[in-house]
């Protein structure tokens, strides 16, 4: 079971207090009528579904009832950070890869 830190309540609570609500940072097209069926379908249904670092939204259903973002590893289930809506992640697949590279080079020297 995950213990998830809610950035609004500022407390780590059990997973069952939350609902998972899907991939984060997917922006709703500003003018749906103006875009193609392909673009609309992509927005509604197509997801990146990575094995590894995933940015996703959770809803604190039994707490503050607010949405926030979580950066989580879908393979190891490690939660790297949680952050408020509207913010961008500070930890991404790229930054982790860069950190690993630095660590390896450190070992080598």
């Amino acid at each position: 079971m995950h213990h998830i830190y809610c950035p609004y309540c500022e407390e780590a609570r059990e997973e069952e207090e939350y609902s998972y609500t899907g991939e984060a940072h997917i922006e709703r097209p500003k003018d749906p009528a103006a875009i193609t069926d392909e673009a609309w379908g992509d927005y509604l249904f197509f997801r990146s579904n990575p094995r590894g670092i995933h940015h996703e939204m959770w809803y604190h259903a039994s707490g503050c009832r607010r949405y926030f973002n979580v950066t989580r590893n879908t393979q190891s289930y490690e939660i790297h950070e949680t952050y408020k809506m509207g913010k961008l992640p500070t930890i991404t697949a790229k930054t982790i890869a860069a950190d690993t590279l630095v660590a390896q080079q450190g070992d080598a020297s």
Partner: protein
Amino acid sequence: MKKYSGFSLFKHSLSHHENWQAAWRSPQPKKQYDVIIVGGGGHGLATAYYLAKVHGITNVAVLEKGYLGGGNTARNTTIVRSNYLWDEASKLYDHSLDLWKDLSQDLNYNVMFSQRGVLNLGHNLQDMRDIERRVNANRLNGIDGVVLNTAEVKEIVPVINDSQDIRYPVLGASWQATGGVARHDAVAWGFARGADSFGVDLIQQCEVTDIITEDGAVVGVQTTQGFIGSKKVACVTAGNSGVMAAMVGLRLPIESRPLQALVSEPVKPIIDTVVMSNAVHAYVSQSDKGDLVIGAGTDSYNGYGQRGSFHIVEHTLSAICELFPMFSRVRMNRAWGGVVDTCPDACPIISKTNIKGLYFNCGWGTGGFKATPGSGHVFAHTLAHDEAHPFAAPFSLDRFNTGHLIDEHGAAGVAH
């Protein structure tokens, strides 16, 4: 391939069963194939078998990163049924059920298909209305089904709790007598042995690390055993379909989640059918060994760990114990998880892509096992003709852009 028979069993007993032919070869990969199938589970092996048998395409490789049938084929609860609501889905799953009936003879391999019937319980008025609607739709599509009341359910499953004073009372059920269970490993092994006998190369411990394309067309795959060329690559990788798609920069309308199941200690015969309940999300049958085979729900979030959350198991078992109070004293032996590829409309994707020669058969979500032969049969047609089989056509990837979804999610006996 040496045929299995009662006589061969007797003959080999004379040499203490030490001289059986291996069920399939373990070949080295060739440089080039006509078709490469990525994923050696039930669906991938069935695809290879029907490609060879029906379409005469035998220069085929099945690449499996682990061992044959070691993923979701080994992890499901082995239920077979075809009582889906919509015409498109019922055609596909009933096609599969037809193939199940003769599969053991066809493969010369006992897949232990047992048509012991499937009950889908209703717990409230709306459940019962949905069941009536679905059974009527099934019968119009030539799929057997009847609506049962509480007493009739009790007659089929005497151990069920028919009290009307529980949280989710059993008000009735749909009953598909032609549904049942099959031996999951045998299905993978039977298809593997059959495909191998036509000359298909089954290559295990061979993980595909990249799909190589040139000018928008597939030319082969990079694997842990080197480059293997082919103008047609078919991905049948269930939970890992998103990972395969990302290799060529595609996104799929799929989210991968862990689905759990568990078995009890073996007990004497107590349930001779399959009982499913969508509302409380629990289903149970009894294996030939005597274990109660119990299926739970998926985790709510994406995950590639082949294990599920404990509170999901707790939820399922509380429902099982309410339906079958006597099971509260049965001890559970093992629990496990598999990574399922869930689609927004709970229907599969059997489709070409916008990359020439790249095909996907995925999105079966929590209910792929029952479709194993049918899925392989129609997908082989799609691969051989570069055009969808009529039963597969509605399940193309572009339905998510045209809007022609086949919404089995709220409609069918959802707990696959």
